[in-house]
């Protein structure tokens, strides 16, 4: 189990990569208009299957929403 902070919320998850994390959250990793950052750095989608997550990592998963 990996302890992560996902979008500001602490969670214990049984995943080791970004792709696995997205899948576990019901997010299609092939979905467009999605971006991920780990510890303040954007991780490009081509790296999601390989990008390893470690305990204590802070993950941001974002998408475009209404805005002015």
């Amino acid at each position, binding site marked *: 189990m990996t302890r992560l902070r996902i979008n500001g919320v602490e969670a214990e998850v049984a995943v080791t990569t970004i792709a696995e994390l997205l899948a576990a959250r*019901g997010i299609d990793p092939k979905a467009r*208009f999605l*971006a991920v950052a780990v510890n303040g750095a954007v991780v*490009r989608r081509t790296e999601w299957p390989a990008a390893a997550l470690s305990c204590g990592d802070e993950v*941001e998963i*974002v998408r*475009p*929403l*209404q*805005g002015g």
Partner: protein
Amino acid sequence: MTDPLLIAGTKLDSRLFVGTAGYPNQQVLLDSLAASGASLVTVSIRRISLEGYAESLVDLLGGRYRILPNTSGCVTARDAILTAELAREALETDWVKLELIGDRETLYPDVEQLVHAADELVRKGFTVLPYCNEDPVACQKLADVGCAAVMPLGSMIGSGRGIANPAAIELICLRSPVPVVLDAGIGTASDAAFAMELGCDAVLVNTAIAKSHDPRRMAAAMRGAVEAGRLARLAGRIPERAFAEPSSPQLGLVGS
């Protein structure tokens, strides 16, 4: 109409930019955008809701508009830069509306951090359109670090108070080496026309349309206003005079 708006070498067909926030529902949003004739719309970047994945706003917009992501809500350069990078990744555009807020009540920009963040984003290859205050010095600094445009506020975001400092906006327009987009505070169509008459190259409107009683109709009004204001600017207005100047001929008056 040979009066194209050019920002960072890109031609935009409409001088009215429209925000996508605060509409009563999605259909009104789409109809209002269509009525506005806008080519460019803004979006925010937010954490995905982990309860479910609602229909994507960008999919809804259907590729009809150039999308300009904003860094709204950011109060530090670091957060704004990360948000811009996430936006670039999510939307495959290097255009960003840079917002760095210094005060949550007034939503005035933190100009010091804004210039620093703009500088860094330009170095990272972004096309930066910064929301800023109506200060010619701040706008010049932003242009100097390489911003593609400057976006001074007319009055506070969402306040509908129009152009609080027309002289400052006019000065900024006179001096700016990059296009000027009046962004924030527009309340109704005449404000948008006024901005264009002062010399702005475009205006960005959100609340004035989204929260009006009839957003579709207000969007159409804004479209007309921006076109009218721009035409008036190009036509070259008469000066303001201290006294009257009669318009009808003064010779041949009956009884003279």
